[in-house]
């Protein structure tokens, strides 16, 4: 399954259901295992491009999707400030430092690694897992602005602990 397209599909569904506005963006997914099934959890937040920046606001909802069927299994509104607070803006320093082609390539590679990393997190070990996990972690950190780190970790700390261990194990 194309994980990037899945995110677009989920965002589109949320818009159709009135749960997301035109200006809503969707995070990359964080895997979680629930009763033996793989779920992907996303954050929804206002993501507004104001050239040359992109402002990201506090997440206002968490959407959980069954993987790989792509069916939304949970939608939870999240508490936000009133008015909702700007967390920061793209590009963060690491992103601004990369040439555009390299930046876009980093995202493509990250999404291409997702299926194997999800599979490994679900317990299906494969040769080369450590290298994949290490590269995934490197790209995830590179593309994530620091101000969103705590929000991603809060979705499922177990995944990030596993990712750290998996990328270190020889």
């Amino acid at each position, binding site marked *: 399954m194309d994980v990037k397209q899945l995110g677009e599909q989920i965002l589109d569904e949320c818009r159709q259901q009135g749960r997301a*506005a*035109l*200006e809503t963006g969707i995070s990359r997914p964080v895997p979680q295992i629930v009763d033996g099934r793989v779920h992907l959890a996303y954050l929804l937040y*206002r993501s507004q491009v104001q050239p040359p920046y992109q402002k990201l606001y506090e997440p*206002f909802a968490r959407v959980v999707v069954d993987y790989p069927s792509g069916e939304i299994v949970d939608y939870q509104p999240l508490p936000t400030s009133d008015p909702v607070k700007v967390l920061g803006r793209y*590009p963060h320093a690491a992103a601004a430092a990369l040439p555009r082609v390299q930046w876009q390539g980093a995202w493509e590679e990250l999404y291409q690694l997702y299926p194997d990393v999800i599979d490994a997190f679900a317990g299906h070990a494969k040769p080369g897992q450590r290298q994949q996990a290490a590269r995934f972690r490197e790209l995830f950190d590179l593309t994530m*602005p620091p101000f969103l780190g705590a929000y991603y970790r809060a979705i499922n700390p177990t995944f990030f602990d596993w990712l750290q261990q998996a990328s270190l194990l020889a």
Partner: protein
Amino acid sequence: MRDTYETDQTEASASDGAKGYDRAALEATIKQAEPVKFGAADQMADTPMHTQGDAPDCLLQSARMAEHRQTGIDPGLEAFKDPAIEKGIYSPDKGTDLQSFSDVLNERPGIEARLDNASGPQDIKSALDNGDSVIAGVDSYEFYKDHYNLEPNSGGHAVVMTGAEQAPDGHWNFAVNDPNLEQPNLAVDGDRFLPAWEKTDRAMLTVSGKGGA
């Protein structure tokens, strides 16, 4: 333009010299660009420009531009904002529900609007040739990604189409009023516009004047 936030001290700032991330320089460059007019003389290059600020009101400002062009009178932002808030279609915290927004437009006295998923760019050209205003929904990342390092799966954006033409070789060129930028009738290559439009299933809000524009 310089913003400071409490929690983003590690991001690139407007003053740290990161190439390509200076809002003032960007605006100066755009102002030097010559406006372009594509297509037939009766296309919509004379659409008045209304820009957005920090609020997520690109669709509201686009509607304002469309009505201004169709009626010759600037209705102001509140003409769309107040009823949209009342109907739960717009929130200053989240933005605008594109699917329902035509309801707000259709309550305006001088215009009527229709939201479609267009079959292709020819629909835009036909509407402009007909004297209608066209608001297109685009994916922000796809629309701006060749100019700035942004996050994919971003929010959407609304722009007012002011020109559309197809070259003999089949290539499309467009001109837009982008509420994010002050310069009207910015040239947008089809290779940039069409993938960004495709991501919104070619969302197209056609705004017509009642009784002829």
